[in-house]
């Protein structure tokens, strides 16, 4: 049932108090939404002119003051997909274990504690960890894998959370019906529970993908470089990435003033990529949800 009190009519002093407060509530919501549109509109209006086929498909030229950002786009896509490849199986597996097999117990408590703390670890600390562990101890160096692994660990709690929520939303009656028919637990999970939860799991994963694509701090010391003349050809290559590119162009470039339009353009591409993934997630969610409806 949807609940709404928007139809109320009130008089008197209590009515006035309510009017004032409700106006404040509306204002707060309005400001936040406005902030979103301000950022997007600003970036679009400033960055739109920089966007061209050339910008999207070419390498940077002339000290990165001309040309395109193809390597950054590819680098970001590779980093995000790599992160997903790491986090998806682990995340979904963990969520299934937590939701379907064990909901109590010391070990489970510890796992949950770890996940919720992992979710709170600052992105720059993930960067430090990636540098110390993946780059140094595992000797992967500053590379696509190191960056993707770092982002993957960072995305883990997001995917676990989303998957667990999706699994929780599967009505218990499905499980009971399946088990009541003589299906084993694992069969029930594979054939009934996970398929029903799939829209939620996929949505969560795409959102995590979008988040990984937009992160800067974790890849700063682990995977991203300022400029490389190649497109990434192996997972041990360093890559350029959109978020880091924006950062360096805006703060550490040689010609910050002259390259503003490139900065706006890159920001626009990054926003389009991330928001596009979000929209895609929303579309998938409603598609898959409706698939089994009439």
């Amino acid at each position, binding site marked *: 049932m949807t609940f709404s009190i928007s139809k109320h009519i009130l008089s008197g002093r209590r009515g006035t108090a309510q009017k004032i407060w409700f106006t404040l509530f509306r204002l707060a919501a309005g400001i936040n939404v406005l902030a979103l549109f301000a950022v997007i509109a600003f970036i679009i209006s400033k960055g739109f002119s920089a966007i061209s086929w050339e910008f999207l498909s070419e390498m940077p030229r002339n000290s990165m003051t001309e040309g395109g950002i193809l390597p950054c786009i590819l680098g970001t896509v590779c980093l995000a997909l790599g992160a997903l490849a790491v986090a998806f199986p682990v995340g979904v597996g963990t969520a299934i274990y937590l939701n379907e097999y064990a909901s109590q117990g010391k070990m489970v408590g510890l796992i949950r504690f770890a996940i919720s703390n992992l979710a709170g670890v600052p992105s720059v600390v993930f960067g430090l960890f990636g540098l110390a562990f993946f780059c140094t101890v595992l000797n992967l160096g500053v590379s696509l894998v190191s960056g993707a692994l770092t982002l993957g660990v960072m995305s883990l709690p997001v995917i676990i959370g989303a998957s667990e929520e999706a699994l929780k939303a599967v009505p218990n009656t499905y499980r009971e019906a399946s088990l009541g028919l003589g299906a084993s637990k694992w069969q029930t999970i594979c054939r009934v529970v996970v398929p029903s939860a799939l829209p939620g799991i996929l949505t969560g994963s795409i959102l995590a993908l979008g988040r990984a694509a937009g992160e*800067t701090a974790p890849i700063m010391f682990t995977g991203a470089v300022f400029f490389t003349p190649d497109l990434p050809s192996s997972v041990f290559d360093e890559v350029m990435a959109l978020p880091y590119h924006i950062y360096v162009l805006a703060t550490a470039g040689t010609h910050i003033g002259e390259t503003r339009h490139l900065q706006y353009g890159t920001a626009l591409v990054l926003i389009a990529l991330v928001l596009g993934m979000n929209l895609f997630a929303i579309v998938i969610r409603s598609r898959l949800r409706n698939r089994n409806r009439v």
Partner: protein
Amino acid sequence: MTHPEATEITPKVDLPGWPDTKTGQKKDTLTGRRTAIGEWLAESSLFTISLISILALGLIMLFLLMEGAPTFSFVSIRDFVLGHFWYPTDEPPDFGILPLILGSVSVTLISSLIAVPSGVMTAIYLSEIAPPKVAEVLKPAIELLASLPSVVIGFFGMVAVAPLMQEVFDIPTGLNLFTASIMLAFMSIPTICTISEDALRSVPITYREASLALGATPFETISKVTVPAALSGITTAIILGMSRAIGETMVVLMIAGGAAMMPESIFDPIRPMPASIAAEMGEAPFRGDHYHALFATGITLFLFTILFNVLAMSASRRFRLKG
């Protein structure tokens, strides 16, 4: 759960694949044992997978510690945490991160002053007041706000908000604590708003109905019944929002000004811990003093977020018990 030594029960009805009841011959290949082993395998591999989270957190702590601990061989913990000067590359260097800690704390507090009312009020609007159609549009918008990459917010703050602040407040520079706090607030508002909204929505409708049926106005219902009942969730939301703010890097790196000083006014430039780590890690030679000191700063930052997280967990537990 199936027991490994499960016995079978012979069915009485004929079905292809089932044991033949007339002849009494067993055709059932689905022995309990095989299923049981498969089930055991599935469960234990999932269990193993779920240990990865513990492993990850453990490794993070281990490596922070391993790389950070050597710091205290050349500077005492006291001097590190309470030292007033951060000159990591001077000869002799000074590794005092108090200004960085104060930078982090002040930017987190001020951004919370903005984000908490704004986020909670937005949550109240979305869950209690907005017509469902409006809420359906606004909710994804707030979620999109959360998905804006921090570097874009930082960039926007740097090129659009900081100059504006400089004009409006007639201050020497727009890169300061205040501007950073505002932009940081927009990073934590979605966290605060969505978790608070969930908490408000999970307050049973029956509470609201009971209150309204007693002649309370919608606002009284919100302030006296709904919000108190959701307090645990809202508190958790606020703490997690602050945790998000203290750990956020790009925004403070790009707009806080980067001065490692004790902030005295909200228009002072600051250098919060994440900004310092991000800015200096690139130059710090591997396993040099500076490198270790930056990891030790990472430990400090990590401890702050763990503290927030534990607070959030205990808040949600405590209030739930009371409720």
